[in-house]
């Protein structure tokens, strides 16, 4: 199996102003001291893991709300990353930034320390829905912050948008989408709300206080959304991601094409040297391990060749271009020899218009995306 040779660096910042109602990520409010202490541990981890990959061309600060760290802190981390890893000239360096946490100064500061892409968690452009989601900002603040970011010189901006928020219909979702598109971001992440265990939404759901948007409506929103964004010149390059040509997220693409990535920070996932690792998810344990000078892994899984193969297929199927037999097993014959048990059902999905199968490879159709888990499961 061929693997792209440049890696990505992911850095998790587990802090936010306040937990959103739908959010199941490792994140929570914390004071400035805790944040600084975390940065120190992060730097410790960066040093311990230096040279884990030969070269990286993307760096991604995810969260949480990484924009709760000051430009100095971000700069300090980046400096350490550049010392520990060879970073390609012109690397994509993304910061997840939440509206309501940004100022002209901080934006300028992030730019100065090397951030060249912003990913903003907008989620909706309707104040009522924003409040319902538990967001800390208004739609007006989003407009203001995007404008501020442009003025600070950011030319590569992603805006996240959630659809299928309980109580919404297709027109609500399209309103949100139009309002987001009107801000003319280079990249839009348009994804369906997932009820995750441990969230406030999930508890409401269990208690019968929250009704999910019906699947039919959810899918109408999705397919209508794809159409709208396509008409506006966005390429639908991954299940939930849309970009103007040339602005696809290079970092996230690594997850879908089996490139290596070094995950740093609390609970971060890594894939290097055909091993999948997950860091400790408990802040205290994470900190203590690093204080002792130990790597903070909670899980290490040595991928077999078969693991790599099936992961390559199911992550690859998330992409518009799908997977090529050549990249995975060298040839169509070899591919179907290896996955022969999946073939009869794959043929059925093909006949049903859910999967395209050519002599080059496989890709999901737009309808196929709706039931993609079932198709992907054929290959695990």
């Amino acid at each position: 199996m061929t693997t792209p040779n440049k890696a990505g660096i992911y850095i998790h910042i587990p802090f936010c102003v306040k937990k959103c109602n739908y959010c199941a990520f490792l994140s929570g409010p914390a004071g400035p001291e805790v944040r600084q202490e975390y940065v120190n541990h992060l730097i410790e981890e960066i040093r311990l893991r230096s040279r884990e990959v030969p070269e990286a061309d993307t760096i991604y600060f995810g969260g949480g709300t990484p924009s709760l760290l000051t430009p100095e802190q971000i700069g300090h981390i980046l400096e350490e990353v550049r010392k520990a890893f060879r970073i390609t000239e012109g690397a994509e360096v993304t910061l997840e930034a939440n509206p309501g946490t940004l100022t002209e100064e901080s934006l300028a500061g992030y730019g100065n320390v090397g951030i060249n892409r912003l990913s903003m968690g907008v989620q909706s452009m309707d104040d009522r829905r924003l409040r319902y989601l538990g967001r800390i900002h208004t739609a007006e603040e989003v407009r203001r912050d995007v404008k501020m970011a442009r003025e600070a010189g950011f030319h590569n901006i992603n805006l996240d948008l959630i659809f299928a928020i309980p109580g919404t219909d297709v027109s609500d979702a399209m309103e949100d989408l139009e309002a987001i598109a009107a801000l003319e971001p280079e990249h839009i992440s348009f994804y369906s709300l997932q009820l995750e265990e441990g969230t406030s939404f999930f508890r409401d759901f269990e208690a019968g206080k929250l009704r999910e948007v019906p699947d039919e409506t959810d899918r109408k929103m999705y397919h209508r959304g794809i159409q709208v964004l396509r008409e506006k010149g966005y390429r639908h390059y991954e299940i939930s991601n849309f970009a103007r040509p040339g602005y696809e997220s290079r970092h996230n693409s690594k997850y879908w094409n089996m490139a290596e990535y070094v995950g740093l920070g609390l609970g971060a996932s890594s894939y290097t040297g055909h091993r999948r690792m997950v860091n400790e998810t408990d802040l205290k344990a994470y900190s203590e391990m690093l204080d002792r000078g130990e790597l903070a892994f909670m899980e290490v899984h040595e991928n077999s060749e078969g693991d790599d193969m099936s992961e390559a297929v199911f992550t690859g199927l998330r992409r518009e271009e799908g997977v090529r037999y050549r990249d995975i097993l060298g040839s169509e014959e070899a591919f179907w020899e290896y996955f022969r048990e999946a073939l009869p059902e794959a043929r059925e999905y093909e006949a049903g218009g859910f999967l395209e199968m050519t002599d080059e490879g496989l890709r999901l159709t737009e309808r196929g995306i709706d039931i993609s888990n079932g198709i992907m499961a054929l290959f695990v």
Partner: protein
Amino acid sequence: MDYLKNIRNFSIIAHIDHGKSTLADRLIEKTGLVQSRDMKEQYLDNMDIERERGITIKLQTTRLHYKAGDGEEYILNLIDTPGHVDFNYEVSRSLAACDGAVLVVDATQGVEAQTLGNVYLALDEDLEILPVLNKMDLDSARPDEAKEEIEDIIGIDAEDAPLISAKTGMGIDDMLEKLVQVIPPPQGDPNGRLKGLIFDSYYDSYKGVVIYTRIFDGSVKKGDFIQLMNTGKSYEVTEVGYCIPGMVPSKELKAGEVGYVCASIKRVADARVGDTITHTDKPTDKPLKGYKKAQSMVYCGVYPAEGEKYENIKDALEKLQVNDAAFQFEPENSAALGFGYRCGFLGLLHMDVIVERLEREFGLDVITTLPSVIYKVIMADGTERMIQNPTNLPDPAEISRIEEPIVKAEIMTPKDYVGSIMTLCQSRRGNMTHMEYLTETRVLLTYDIPLNEVIYDFFDALKSRTRGYASLDYEFQEYRPAKLVKLDILLNKEVIDAFSSIVPEEEAYAKGRNICAKLKKIIPMHQFEVPIQAAVGRKIIARETVRAYRKDVIAKCYGGDISRKKKLLEKQKEGKKRMRQFGTVEVPQEAFTEVLKFDDTE
């Protein structure tokens, strides 16, 4: 007969998770038989399924040595009891083998139903009861309230109940001291005629059936000829001994003692729990009271799942039967599922356990059909047929009447729940025959109720409506005529015989709707619409549709967490393997049991 005063035969009675097994572990550890480091957790529950569900099905017996404060050495025989209404009879026989019982009450929870049911069984056997309060290591322990409950609800003195923590070992010594003081030594005449109670038996491939027994009078040794009084058969004893645990042979077993007897018996069905052992040549005049024959109350079909071999199932069922007197089976076939077996069980839990053992111990992939009771069908020509499988119900035109088994159900409950129990029983076609205040707060309700209503989810419903406080016991009474019809389920217009059931005519509509709604949730999306219909005869009485559309996509793949996503897909694939194809429709195997699950929204 001096040796008797240094023996104590006792059981531990506890609600499911109040710590019976942990306490047993601690006792075994304290009395030095098993080194701590060799302790598996919950030593007595030795089947995986028991361990997982925290229930005990097959009994374990242990002989412990304890040196008490008075300087005397005591032999403590701990006799385990199973923990479910399906096995009430087995529980009562275990208790009959004891002279006392340790009642474990969770000091954080207080008295609960199961405890109560078993306490009453123990009182029926005139056992001395030693209450102890467990989980005293927890901050939430409320010993005073728990004591009060024991006194109010059960009516036994709990003032001096030892406070223990089975988990940490706290208070165990004190408890053991109390145990030898409170629980009386056994009585009996070692020189009298042999009288021993079988309270459990299991099949060992080297020794044949191993009988667990409590000797009440006389003694038994290797070479004796013994008779099992209820089956009437005689055998030569090949070995006797104590369970320490693990079998340790001894010269003899005599009055007051607990141990095992082997006599080349081939099937456990021949050494049924509750039977009396005596000498063939010098029998005792009458057997111990309380013997009942094993009787299957619930039947269901067991079929090989996709790719499983029929012969494998047969082999496994035969092996299970050797060790389970209450389990029966015979071949049958189904249009939907092919060749399989109709199996008879004591109750629903017994059924679950057997099915799980087939899957786990034997690695088999099986499908079970809706459980059913046995109906008596009186044909127009006057002949009678016993129907175990709803599919075999003859054409209504040829039937004169159908009769169903009625049980006498005794429900014991705190008085606050009488109202909701009455509502429940009424909705299950129950007929109250008696109501009695046992104490100011405890009531005994007696109902005649169709067995069919009891087997599905009655016990769950009862527990849920009484916060677990009510206890249930039932026994077969008689067959009575009832207006019953066959309810069929159709998937994509085809009758799936394995889903057919016999239901009261007036409930057919509600039941049909309920099953359709449940199937709608369970059956996955297909590439076409799947109609689910319920029908009585030709008439469709309920309908649902599985839309050809259901979202099944992970919207976002966060932060490269591929492992989690992969696990999800693996789970999905595993689920798919367990699908059963009916024509063009795929049905998950759990559908067969899922449609029965208790649902309090009914």
